[in-house]
């Protein structure tokens, strides 16, 4: 079950929109989004813009690597780490 408001809940509509536009109707947490063509090189940048807007995080060029965007699970982990770092920064301010 995906919790409403969770990172995954906010992420999935974006992923599914991209998947469906490529004729793929099901995406599980560990499916490779790049190997399946759901996220191509342009898609990564759209995904980055989406994440920056949705979660109010800043993603550097050097963070745009497959490890971070390979699957729903890795994206979720990446965003969670970004939000945690942001929270820590805010807390220490």
């Amino acid at each position, binding site marked *: 079950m995906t919790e409403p408001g969770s990172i995954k809940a906010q992420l999935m509509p974006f992923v599914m*929109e991209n998947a469906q*536009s*490529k*004729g793929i109707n099901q995406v599980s947490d560990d499916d*490779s989004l*790049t*190997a*399946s*063509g759901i996220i*191509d*090189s*342009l*898609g*990564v*940048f*759209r995904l*980055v*813009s989406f994440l*920056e807007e949705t979660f109010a995080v*800043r*993603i*550097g*060029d*050097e963070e*745009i*690597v*497959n*490890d971070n965007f390979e699957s729903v699970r890795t994206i979720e982990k990446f965003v969670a780490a970004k939000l945690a770092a942001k929270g820590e920064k805010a807390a220490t301010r």
Partner: protein
Amino acid sequence: MDFAWSEEQQAFRREVIRFAQQELNENLIERDLHEEFSWDAWRKCAKFGIQGLPIPQEYGGGDADMLTTVCGLEALGYGCRDNGLIFSINAHMWTSEIPILKFGTEAQKKKYLPKLVSGEWVGLHAMTEPMSGSDAFSLLSRAERKGDRYVINGSKTFITNAQNAEVIIVFANLDPEKGAAGITAFILDKDTPGFTISKKLHKMGLRTSPMAELSFVDCEVPVENLLGKEGGGQTIFTVSMEWERICIMASHLGAMQRMLETSVKYAKERRQFGQAIGNFPPISTKIADMDIRLETARLVLYKAAWLKSQGKHALREGSIAKAYVADACIQQALDAIQIHGGYGYMTEYQIERELRDAISGKIYSGTTEIQKKIIAGFHGLSDVPSAAPARREQG
């Protein structure tokens, strides 16, 4: 929203223009004719700090933000008429320095960046192949891991800086089963056995910038020359293209201003039917159009550069700027030629060269059609992705 350059940026701009006008325009008609690259001008630019503009000081660079870099490159484009030299510098900065800066290990940055910044080494990137241009990620070059080395085989074409480069960033597929996700970038030294410049290429414009085909036959690269991660080639390529599209076009703005000013001057001086040709509405309207074009081109390009200088991504805006400025610069050159009449068509007046140089702006760093494809992609409109094996099998 702030449309003004800071005082430092304005001073920098003036300084670049002075330097470029004084140092970079020698024998250009001859050099264009004979396709001669100027090492002297290259070294002077490096000494001035152009090649290192956006690179951090710790690697010898100028640490300039994107807007200041654009300001400098626009000034360079205005003062320097050698568009081929500027093109070579841009290819070097955005397709070798930036990928190493953004994705290289600390050891790679220390090894390559200082010498790329100082101009001692020239860099390039080799993506395009005879069978893959716009569909870059369908490339056929292959890499294979063998112990502590990668072995690269393939051929590349249309490679800028080929004859001069020490540092070659080559893209090859390490895992073709994965399609584009297998594309990987490697840094290759030019003396690597099996690497050859297979054929010099001659072109319509940008003739002072060297170009050739490259061949890789069992080229062995140590594992420490992997750039980024295995399978990270797509992103490295896209990130460098995002930088290149914005910055390379900044110099076009300078060239467009130069063409406008030359045309205004000529329209005031040249007399026909007893008066200056600038008094004829078809000519003055062309001048106004040239001004509108320059102003709008600046706005789209500065917006993209501003986004990048804020640490944001500007792939869409960069594509808009690339497509718009490329067209604008060609039209600027056509108008300048028309205003100059027969003289504009003559080599001596150095405007016909501007047109020849400008045309390639619609082709390199992704054609105008591909920029529009990228822009449409941001609106959710995309065709079948290239090089995705699952899709390929179905198609």
